[in-house]
């Protein structure tokens, strides 16, 4: 049985998640203790800033023990955590594992980080030797399902962070960013983030610095571009496609006249002005100049929200894809269970026995009731004796971490 026990941004505040997070250097120890103390035969721990979860496999429902372990490991008591900790078993646990990997349970729907985090968590468990066939299968299937959901729907396609939105808008205007040029006015964190992605897309960057020219030079070097003094603003703007302005200046830095002059020199080719400063750097009236697209921080946020709405609509089709994959996984899991295997093995053996008895009876002619009984007893005896040891052995290995391989082998051998 697969169990998932933990807490996430949906159930617990940051303070609690922090307190229960597993530091990287204690992960090996935690995995070992989880197996010992909670009776798990396989274990994996996913610990990110938005969730702390223990994934495990056990022969019986042990989620309560896992939850207690989770609290004990961090010197907490389970009853004080209360309903913040969810304890999922069986199908519900599998469904949760799939949804987490596909980023449907994430704070920012469709974010891409979670896939790497889940991957690394499984790898850490593998290195610690606590990953067996079942969790390994869960890893492969849930990651494959996540990738499928991502490629077949647009759940992760549209940017939802301000700097990404800026880059995406630039692409909507200019298409390819290769050989485009970006002008950074001021060297802020967010403008750096956006510029970095544009440079990665092939754009050239120029950084204008005012009082702190050194900072501008450093950023220009990091972006593989040039630095220039703020006085060069007017002349530079006529040569660029994108301007990202994020100075700490109290007043306007770029005025409508500056933009008009630049656009006249550029013959009104598109100019994308991004104002991420508060208070604003670029005169709002500049948006009226031909060919100019002006976005301030609020505009970028409003596009990000629209993108998020788009993602939520996509989530429905992603859920449908995931349900398909979850269904396939569960069915596969059931086919590997020991109990149905034993039932099938027994009924197959009995079927063969009956068929053979019938054949013999036809050859022997009418038998007395005693002879009938004896024939039945002999054949049943052989079947039972033959199946006795496999039955015992199968039940014994039900909790074993190689049990799926064994079940598969037996199915193959007996043609089930």
């Amino acid at each position, binding site marked *: 049985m697969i169990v998932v026990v933990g807490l996430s941004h949906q159930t617990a505040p940051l303070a609690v998640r922090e307190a229960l997070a597993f530091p990287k250097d204690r992960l090996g120890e935690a995995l070992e203790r989880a197996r010992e103390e909670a009776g798990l035969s396989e274990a994996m721990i996913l610990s990110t800033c938005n969730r702390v979860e223990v994934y495990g496999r056990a022969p019986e429902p042990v989620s309560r023990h896992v939850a207690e372990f989770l609290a004990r490991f961090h010197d907490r008591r389970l009853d004080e955590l209360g309903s913040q900790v969810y304890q999922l078993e069986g199908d519900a646990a599998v469904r949760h594992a799939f949804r987490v990997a596909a980023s449907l349970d994430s704070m920012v729907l469709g974010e891409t980080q979670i896939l790497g985090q889940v991957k690394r968590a499984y790898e850490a468990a593998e290195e610690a030797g606590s990953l067996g066939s079942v969790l390994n299968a869960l890893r492969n299937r849930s990651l494959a399902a996540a990738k499928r959901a991502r490629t077949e*729907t647009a759940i992760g396609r549209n940017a939802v962070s301000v700097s990404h939105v800026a880059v995406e808008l630039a692409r909507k205007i200019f298409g390819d960013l290769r050989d485009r040029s970006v002008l950074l006015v001021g060297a802020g964190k967010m403008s750096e983030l956006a510029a970095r992605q544009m440079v990665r897309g092939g754009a050239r960057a120029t950084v204008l610095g005012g009082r702190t020219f050194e900072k501008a030079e450093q950023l220009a070097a990091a972006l593989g571009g040039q630095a220039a003094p703020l006085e060069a603003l007017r002349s530079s703007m006529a040569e660029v496609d994108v301007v990202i302005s994020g100075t700490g200046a109290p007043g306007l830095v770029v005025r409508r006249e500056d933009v008009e002059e630049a656009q006249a020199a550029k013959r009104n080719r*598109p100019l994308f002005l991004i104002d991420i400063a508060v208070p604003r750097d670029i005169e709002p009236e500049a948006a009226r100049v031909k060919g100019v697209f002006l976005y301030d921080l609020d505009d970028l946020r409003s596009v990000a929200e629209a993108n998020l709405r788009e993602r939520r609509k996509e989530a429905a089709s992603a859920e449908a894809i995931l349900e398909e994959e979850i269904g396939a996984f569960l069915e596969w899991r059931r086919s590997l269970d020991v109990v149905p295997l034993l039932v099938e093995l027994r009924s197959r053996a009995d079927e063969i026995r009956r068929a053979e008895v019938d054949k013999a009876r036809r050859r022997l002619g009418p038998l007395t009731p005693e002879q009938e009984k004896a024939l039945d007893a002999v054949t049943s005896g052989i079947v039972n004796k033959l199946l006795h040891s496999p039955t015992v052995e199968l039940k014994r290995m039900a909790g074993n971490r190689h049990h799926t391989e064994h079940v598969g082998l037996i199915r193959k051998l007996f043609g089930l």
Partner: protein
Amino acid sequence: MDSRVYLFLSLILYAVGAVHVFVHVVTRRRLLTTLTVASTLLGFAFHTAALSQRWTEEGHFPAVGLSDGASFLAWATVLVFLLVYLTTRVDALGLFAYPFVFVLVCVASLSPTSGRPDSVLRGLFLPVHTVLAVFGYGALFVAFTMGVLYLIQEHELRSRSPHRVYYVVPSLERCDTIGGRAAIGGFAFLTLAILTGFNWNMSLNGRYWTGDPKEWAAICAWLIYVVLITARYRAGWGGRRAAWLGIAGFAIVVFTFAWATLVPGVEAAAP
């Protein structure tokens, strides 16, 4: 089989594409899939069969009258659309191309065929002139569509709270580039079509210019494209203004075509 049957089959297959495109806008999947393209290709094959059938039925190139004219224009539009789609992968083009083609094929199947045996239609002028014209129209239709998409995308970008189309329509740059190339291609075909038209006039009437309104309309459309192309490449008139000119030019082209097919007379026999 009757040419009408072929035409009807192609109509249904184009409708599959049209419905598919709109369903996919609503359901937020990719606009064009292999299925859509395959059904369009099959529809195109039936359409080609319908045209060749018409050719044998009429005894001359099947581009005379409303029915055959619309059918032939639709055929060329599908071909141009497929070529542009397969080279650029701009699926938003389908949003306009499918309804346009669907309406044209509807008109073609519902209106009666002219069936006028006429010796002037037997020469080489009819096929050469109409093929050139129709491919020109197809390319100019692409330029028109890209112009509309450009304006839509520009509006979306200025609105700052994008709607669904924002995600479907390609970047401004792409709309502009493809629209520009389509306009040049269409213009080249249109020029050749007009030249052959004049020569046809010459061989029929002994004059290059008859003063027919259709000739005026064709020249007007041609001049608009001259302005569009020179302005774009000489004065850097890209983007918005080029988009509007592309739309205006195509509007006049549609008028020319309608005139040519709806007004009877030998002169108006071909588009």
